[in-house]
């Protein structure tokens, strides 16, 4: 009975789908009629073959078991073009973020970059590391020689608050 994917013999997992839908606040965000605008404009498609319309359709049909462990959910660069332009006010972005959180929960493989970013924030309070830059006169400068104030590492309480916020977000 019902739907099955003849390529992998997978069956829809409605329970898991509803879990994802609950995270993003109901079915409205996957209410998609496949106009393909999201994929046509996707920044990550040209580099990494992310097809937001396929992800939305897979979630819609309930083929969600493979998604949290797959690489493609991590390629979204969160430019939010799809959210802004979707004629159905659906949102591949929110679905992808929900899938990522699910992946972390399931302890699936998370790309190194993301884990690095988290530890970076915990250590320095910044998303990125400081780099020296080269000016138009080809001089290499850093904050110190520009006489900019030193940036202090965050207070300890920040790490507690940050971890707490992370936990709240994922549950």
């Amino acid at each position, binding site marked *: 009975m019902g739907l099955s994917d003849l390529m992998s013999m997978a069956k829809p997992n409605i329970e898991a789908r509803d879990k994802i839908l609950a995270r993003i606040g109901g079915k409205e965000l996957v209410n998609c009629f496949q106009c393909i605008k999201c994929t*046509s404009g996707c920044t990550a498609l040209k580099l990494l073959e992310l097809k937001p319309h396929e992800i939305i359709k897979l979630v819609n049909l309930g083929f969600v078991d493979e998604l949290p462990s797959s690489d493609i959910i991590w390629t979204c660069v969160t430019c939010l073009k799809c959210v802004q332009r979707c*004629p159905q006010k659906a949102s591949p972005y929110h679905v992808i973020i929900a899938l990522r959180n699910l992946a972390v929960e399931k302890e699936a493989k998370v790309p190194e970059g993301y884990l690095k970013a988290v530890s970076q924030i915990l250590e320095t309070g910044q998303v990125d590391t400081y780099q020296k830059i080269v000016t138009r006169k080809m001089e290499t400068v850093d904050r110190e020689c520009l006489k900019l104030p030193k940036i202090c590492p965050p207070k300890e309480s920040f790490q507690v608050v940050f971890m707490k916020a992370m936990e709240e977000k994922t549950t």
Partner: protein
Amino acid sequence: MTRIGVYVCHCGLNIAGVVDVEKVAEYAKTLPDIVVSEHYTYMCSEPGQRMIQEGIRNKKLDRIVIATCSPRMHEETFRRAVAEAGLNPYLTEIVNLREQVSWAHTHEPEKATEKAKALVRMGVARSRLLEPLEKRRVSVEKSVLVVGGGIAGIQASLDLANAGFPVYLVEKAPSIGGRMAQLDKTFPTLDCSACILTPKMVDVAKHPNITMLTNAEVTDVKGFVGNYEATILKKPRFVDEKRCVGCELCAQVCPVKVPDRFNENLTQKRAISIYSTHAVPNIAIINPGYCLRLKYNKGVCGKCQEACEAKAINFEQQPETVQVKVGGVVLAVGSEVFNALQMTELGYGRFKNVISNIEFERISDASGPTGGKILSPKNGKTPKTVVFIQCVGSRDKRFHEYCCRVGCMVTLKQAILAREKIHENVKIYVCYIDMRAFGKGYDEFYRRARDMDIDFVAGLPSEIHESPDGSLYFDVYDTGTNKLLQIRTDLVVLGTGLVPNEDLADISALLHASRSADGFLLEAHPKLKPLESAVAGVFLAGACQGPKDIPDTVAQASGAAAKALDLLSHGEIELEPLKAIVDEDLCSGCKICTSICPFLAIEMKTDIIEGKERARAEVIEAVCQGCGLCSSACPTGAIKIQQYNNKQVMTQVEAALAETCAEGGK
């Protein structure tokens, strides 16, 4: 003693699926004065009606309570059945168990049944106090006002006029013809739009039964079904309609250029000019916003006045108001085309080579800015690639959620026109979501387009870019091939949809005609009364009721005309007897009711009683619609609505509270 019959309807499973109708009917039996209490699958069906009639004949019932759908749906049906059995039809009380119970509380069947019982109890209590009433008859003015002179208004006017009734056709623009006059060809037959429309426009102008009022607007409508009184404002043309021969000598000397609205502002014309090449009436008009003489002072310019051999130009012309009495109104004000400026990602307005489909229509038209040659607006050259993008502004929750119903077919037609007119190896692409070719001959038209080597890309682009040389490019993912494609083109045509006319706000306020959620005018019933508004005597035709193509518009216009004929042909109509009555002893003459009545149905009359002047309200029976505003506003309780007086309503409230009190105020 009253003998009450209660009839509970299942409405198939609409009511019975939620409400326990048997329990409700059993419960009704416990109420005082109930002689009969029955339930049946479809109370409105012939056997259902017969049940009620047999109750009246055999059990001598004198009050009927029917627990069924909304009174808007079948109150008339049941009243007729009751009257046939010999009982006054106004002794019927409808209790709404469908819209207000089963449909509203689908997931709570037990509570719904309790609510149904309470409503039946209230209905029974009220029914005892109902009074027999007689219908009023009023005469009908045998003429019709048609608002809007597009193809819908033209068709309705001609049908009504041919049937022998006078028609007043009011058009806002200087010429009739509307949107259809702007089109080049029509789908799916590729008839030339002007060739099939202009003869009709001329027929309207020549018809002895039609009074055509162009450059005019309806500013006020008073009265009620059969007896409307409309005020029409005829704005000045500054040209004598009787003298002007349409030679356009004036336009040749006029020094002021203005954007040409008929050509979607793609070209310019003079401040004095004729609206379009096939305008009816073919009379010049001065645009007072641009004309130097009208804008500044009497001394300047006046060149047109010198050039006009017919001495038709009159700078002193004033607005004129025309009062007409009509029996019915046909609203045919049409729609507008979505303004693609709102959809910034497609670059309309920023990139000259991105145009809307109505602009393409003008470019393709022989009387348009390019004389019918399809050229890119930016460089005036024949495009090598033409791309059509579908669903712009429609099927889009950011703008309009509905399908525009014509966009797909318009694009197919324009793609075919582009193929026929340019030909030399032009590449044509259509980016679409779904191709909706649903009408008679429409899918065959779609095949014809595919046969003509027009390529269909299943997917919409996210954004359009312009390269320095003025050509456009965009990425689009095609779900047919699962490939990301890039298309470079020198002309993009946006499939802009139809949106509600801006004037609809004023018009719906004037005639109390409501609008649906999408902004178009609301029909009385989506399936069974698509030609009428909820206001009696006001009919709907064409795209003002919802987006429509020409065949559907013409069909609806003829239908609305037939409905108007139905109203006019009898010469008189029956009106509901539910009206306001004034208790003269209680009336203090405060005039609150006259100020609040939306139908102007209350007048003040002055009597001299014991040497003192005394003002009292008086209801004009034929005009009163029984809306009840006066009754609720009256500070002394002097105005009452029949069948809804204080006692009748309060009894119902008491019945509603009765059970709760008995249960200890739960």
